[in-house]
């Protein structure tokens, strides 16, 4: 399978990573090399195999639905690039 420039641009947008137009060709070549490498999986018959969903067989842990943490907004926004009154500040989203 070969990936074209339009696919690279689509994937980059899905991943929310700006890609320099000059980079697209190189990325495409790297993508094709990696996809070529993983292509060998197609030769295995996996029709009667269940996909792994839990690394160690275990039951998901349950806990009480209680509030056990929180109440420190200053800590939460301490690392934010921009914040005001305990809120994160972002560019205008809704006109």
């Amino acid at each position, binding site marked *: 399978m070969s*990936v074209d420039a339009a*696919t*690279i641009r689509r*994937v*980059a*947008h*899905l*991943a*929310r*990573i*700006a*890609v320099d137009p000059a980079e697209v060709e190189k*990325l495409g070549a*790297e*993508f094709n*090399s*990696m996809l070529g*490498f*993983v*292509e*060998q*999986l*197609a030769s*295995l018959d*996996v029709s009667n*195999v*269940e*996909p*792994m*969903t839990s*690394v*160690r067989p*275990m039951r*998901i*842990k349950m*806990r009480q639905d209680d509030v056990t943490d929180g109440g*420190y907004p200053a*800590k*939460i*926004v*301490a*690392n*934010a*690039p*921009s914040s005001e009154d305990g809120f*994160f500040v*972002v*560019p*205008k*989203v809704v006109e």
Partner: protein
Amino acid sequence: MSDLTKLTLAEARDGLKAKSFSAVELTRAHIEAIEAARGINAFTTETPDKALAMAAKSDERLANGRAGPLEGIPLAVKDLFCTDGVKTTASSNILGSFVPPYESTVTANLWADGAVLLGKVSCDEFAMGGSNETSAFGPVVNPWRRKGADGSADPTPLVPGGSSGGSAAAVAAHLAIGAAGTDTGGSIRQPAAFTGIVGIKPTYGRCSRWGIVAYASSLDQAGPFARTVEDAAILLKSFASVDGKDTTSVDTPVPDYAAAVGKSVKGLTIGVPKEYRVDGLSPEIAALWDQGIEWLKAAGANVREISLPHTPYALPAYYIIATAEASSNLARYDGVRYGLRVPGEDIVDTYERTRAAGFGPEVRRRIMLGTYVLSAGYYDAYYVRAQKVRTLIARDFEAAFNDGIDAVLVPATPSPAFGIGEKSGGDPVEMYLQDVFTVTVNLAGLPGMVVPGGTSSTGLPLGLQLIGRPFGEEALFTLGHVIEAAAGRLTPEPWWRD
């Protein structure tokens, strides 16, 4: 006073208890060693003041008989573990100034047991790499150098392996008594092999992942580096815990791993998988492997050839699963809640510019590949198929263990450490092949330990890898100690002090 950085963890612990030296003296010796080794570039953040304050507290506890199992032991921590009030970067510009207001469970366990934080050590960016060259803060240099045919040292700088390259280099160069690392596809075991020390990736679920910057959540696992098998066993006891904050933390009591060191291996059966004798396996790696088999036989273990038929499919399955999980985990770096922000025309443009500027090329490539394999139309062909292959790989090991195999012995890496820049320039797949002997263990969730087995023709360390049953770490410590006793410990020439 003799050089306190030469001590093993067990020796340092005993010396502190016997009051031969203080925790502050021990920590100061390591701080001086770190200052003299900046050329190795192992540390992203040094915390000497915090270390001395922690050591002073350790001295108080030692004086009043309340010493913990790691009391006063100075450690280095991979810059992927969140440390309360200490910068945590994942060796990435996107987290370049991030100071967590909380502590990871593993490091909290270490401090509760009395350990001292010397600083945070470098890794590949977001743990994505096998050479520590993808770090945003420059490559770490391996404390080992090649020897020429006439025995003279070749000054070509070599990689320490990755992703936990800073952790491995710090321990090998005696800058820390032990270190914390993480292993997603070999990131503890390959650097341990490249620097001639011991490293163990425990069973998935043995150490809490809470507070560790996530790469691929179903593969990531924390573990220790040390210069002896016994030291690694002592450290793992403190790393491991049952943690309600990690839903994959397994509810199994933590055994006394150090008690397994020195036990007899008589009656244990070791599997040697024929699929790991890959085409083009270097004769020197094959000879090391055969030597390891002979050492275990001589100590009384039974050795049997086994088959793990799906081994050749492990690497491609790994690169689909790891990149898919990474694309999801790293979606959180959006320039809103923490980390770098590059302003754009609107919110989406802000995200895209932030992530383009904040992530390095390898991280961008893996996020995009993961996005692709999860995208509509490709999910079943790539991601679901890879998870099915993963089931087959886990079944291979299960069948061997059900057939009476206690542990598996294989090489750690296909080669010794390579030069900085030698493999990072071209096709990314070439670097991925570094993990050929280590990724199976992550896919199957098993414990794997690397122990130095000898040196290459160029004088560089080579490692042997033991793979255990789920929660079979104790057998690995027992077997690893046999290899260590036969192979001896490896110490590099301290060229960086010149």
